[in-house]
């Protein structure tokens, strides 16, 4: 399906959603979302803005940092996290509208190296090789991508071997950047991030049954400035047109 067809489908869905919700004055919707969703969300937001005249502001970063900002009162309308734990935290603090919470997407973890690197990592245990001097991960205690990677490595009994050579980064896209720059030998990112960059290549994809259960929940934030706008945008994200954009970037969508 080419870009134009995709766009038309998205625009059509956005229009349908607008008609369903009635006419509201054009406003601003502030979306806090995990960094791994960058490309997909930008595409959906662009289509949404064209059809509705609303402005979508995307604040993309580590879900842990975003959740923290929301707790401190940052003006978000919609939050899309890369793991359930961050959303649970906000739910416990009464900051989300629980009726709007849904888990839409999943992802897989991959090990990447720079595109021009000749490192061959055929299995996760190859990360313990001496040739891998530095391994970039998202911060393994806070950022979802890092937590998923650490849990997987712990389950495989590899964490002790690699912990000494990890370079923790602020979010998963920073891992990608570190691998691209050549300052680290390998990195663990989401498959969707790896696919978005031509400067890295996937050397190993962590099989679904071995890997952690990755889930991206979304919810509308209570006390946001534009709840109807947030609802409209959320409706577009979960529509078939929205899901097809996510699928295009490599996300796994719940049926």
């Amino acid at each position, binding site marked *: 399906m080419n870009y134009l067809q995709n766009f038309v489908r998205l625009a059509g869905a956005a229009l349908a959603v607008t008609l369903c919700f009635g006419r509201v004055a054009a406003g601003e919707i502030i979306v806090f979302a995990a960094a791994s969703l960058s490309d997909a969300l930008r595409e959906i937001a662009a289509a949404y803005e064209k059809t509705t005249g609303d402005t979508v502001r995307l604040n993309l970063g*580590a879900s*842990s*940092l975003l959740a*923290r900002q929301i707790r401190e009162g940052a003006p978000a309308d919609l939050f899309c996290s890369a793991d359930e734990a961050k959303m649970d935290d906000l739910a416990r603090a009464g900051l989300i509208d629980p009726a709007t919470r849904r888990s839409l997407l999943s992802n897989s973890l991959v090990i990447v190296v720079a595109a021009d690197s000749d490192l061959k990592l055929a299995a996760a245990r190859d990360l313990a090789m001496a040739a891998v*001097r*530095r391994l970039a991960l998202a*911060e393994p*205690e*806070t950022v979802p991508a890092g937590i998923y990677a650490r849990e997987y490595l712990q389950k495989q009994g590899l964490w002790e071997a690699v912990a000494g050579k*990890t*370079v*923790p*980064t602020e979010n998963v896209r920073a891992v990608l950047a570190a691998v691209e*720059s*050549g*300052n*680290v030998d390998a990195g663990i990112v989401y498959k969707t991030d790896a696919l978005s960059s031509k400067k890295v290549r996937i050397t190993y994809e962590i099989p679904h049954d071995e890997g952690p259960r990755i889930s991206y929940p979304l919810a509308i934030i209570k006390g946001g400035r534009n709840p109807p706008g947030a609802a409209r945008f959320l409706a577009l994200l979960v529509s078939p047109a929205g899901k097809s954009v996510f699928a295009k970037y490599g996300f796994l969508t719940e049926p």
Partner: protein
Amino acid sequence: MSFEVWQVAWFTTWVAAVGTLLILPPGIALGWVLARKNWRGKTLVETLVTLPLVMPPVATGLVLLKLFGRQGLLGRWCESVFGVEIVFTWRAVVIATAVMSFPLLVRTARLALEGVNPRYEQVARTLGAKPWRVFWTITLPLAARGLVAGAVLAFARALGEFGATIMVAGFIPGRTATLSLSIYHLFQLNRDNEAWGLLTISVALAFGALWLSEVLLRKRPAS
């Protein structure tokens, strides 16, 4: 406090001290040149030296990352000559803090050296002393208070460095974790109480350093 507070505080103090010591010779030398000499490109040099003071620290960090990274000019040189990597190690922390403190040291050193009456130096020269001897025995002792104040100020700045450090060294517990990086890390972990603990230590160190600097810079009453 369960977080290795004292290890982090010690590491921060240590890298700040090493960084400051590293920049003392070039900083004082440059301060002297700017204080005593005039030449056509002088304003350009002054501006370039002051640049890290006003540039966004992360921008400086990015430049350092490109220079000292594995693919960078100086990074590759260091690896081939010394066999060591710079980025993501304590060496990168030292370099980041040194670069960020350098402008402050040069400015204070220059002021201190400008405060030395050049006549004393000229008299010493007429009495036959070589320029180097004049510097060590006349200029330096007379400028000492100001120079020490400058060094302490640079040290205080180095203690609090964040932007450039996080770019070029990252936050690696036990290896590059400074006080400011650790505060940021704990904030992300929602461990605010421990962050406040580190904050208190940071403030105490900075306060002590600045106090000392101010005391040294205060002019002695004419006797």
